[in-house]
């Protein structure tokens, strides 16, 4: 019997909303959305946590420029508060090293993190998901009862095809979808909203491709001033 499974619910007892930023495909801006979302919610006065679950390609610490912090050990581990955000990432334990884990091991590591991390009181916990509908997605669905998904996609046919598959699984399982966000829009027209209308999930809006974004990575103040963040802030208001 794995005792850790029975403590996870208790760890989220005082977390009001849990939002997993997902989308099936990689490189659509999940990590950027999750990181900026955490920053913006904190700015608006919400107590916010950010959990980077992309163990093979963790990016939130790069995007937010987080370095040199480590959780405190106290009846579990307490995520350090950085930029006002309670931040948890595999990088505390993996450093800059590659993380060549098989799915069952990713699953085990996720269970361990969920079982020992004490988030305490939070208004929002944002979970940055890896691509795919493998172990991390299945575990978050299985282990966190109140999770909602925020689906990111681009207008690209390859991204849309994958987003549809994830939405189909979530719909079938009755997992709430907080909304769909179109990212990196390049053209005037986009069929994303219509293409996904059959899933009956809120369409949160489109964010344009932002050429200034790359230079803002690692610098939270700059990040908040990008068009990306300004657009996301409008969208966040619809979420709260």
């Amino acid at each position, binding site marked *: *019997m*794995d*005792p850790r499974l029975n403590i996870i619910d208790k760890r989220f007892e005082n977390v009001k909303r849990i939002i997993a930023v997902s989308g099936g495909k990689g490189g659509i801006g999940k990590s950027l959305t999750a990181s900026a979302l955490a920053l913006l919610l904190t700015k608006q006065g919400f107590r916010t946590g950010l959990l980077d679950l992309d163990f093979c390609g963790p990016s939130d610490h790069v995007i937010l420029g987080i370095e040199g912090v480590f959780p405190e050990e106290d009846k579990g581990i307490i995520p350090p508060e950085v930029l006002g955000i309670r931040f948890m990432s595999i990088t505390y*334990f*993996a450093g800059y090293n590659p993380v060549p884990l098989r799915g069952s091991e990713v699953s*085990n590591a996720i269970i*361990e993190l969920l079982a*020992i991390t*004490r988030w305490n009181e939070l208004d929002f916990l944002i979970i940055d998901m890896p691509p795919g509908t493998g172990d991390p997605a299945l575990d978050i669905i299985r282990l966190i009862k109140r999770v909602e998904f925020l689906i990111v996609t681009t207008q690209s046919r390859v991204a849309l095809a994958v987003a549809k598959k994830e939405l189909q699984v979530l719909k079938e399982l009755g997992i709430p979808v907080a909304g769909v966000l179109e990212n990196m829009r390049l053209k005037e027209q986009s069929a994303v909203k219509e293409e996904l209308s059959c899933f009956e999930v809120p369409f949160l809006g489109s964010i344009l491709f932002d050429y200034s974004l790359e230079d803002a990575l690692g610098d939270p103040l700059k990040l908040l001033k990008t068009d990306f963040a300004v657009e996301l802030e409008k969208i966040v208001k619809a979420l709260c």
Partner: protein
Amino acid sequence: MHEWALAESIVFTVNEEAVKEKLKDITMVKVKVGELQQIELDIFKFALENVLPLSSIPLNMARIDIEIDESTLKCNVCRNEWNFRDAAGKLPEEESEAIHFIPEVAHIYMRCPRCGSPDFEIAKGRGVWIDYIEGER
């Protein structure tokens, strides 16, 4: 001391099981602590003793048997088997502490001693585990 969190999970699981199996009394809980996680038994027992009051069913340390579970690591590439103990001495403290928190990061810091692969299985002795719970209805 993150052992506290794992100790809590033991108590919660015993309680859950007691409800599910309609147990009125717990006679024995067998806990295995995987070698890989390098938990000091004294610390773990201290934590467990302190979280026992959380239990909704009477539980005391005399009824909890804790045993260290030796590790077996098995290489997926060359099928070699070895254990953590023999290899652990060479790890820097920071790395073995990381394994203490998340045993899976062993794949980051350790390699198959025969073929050098990080692609091995933690077949036994990973972390805290309940072997069985015995009680009376």
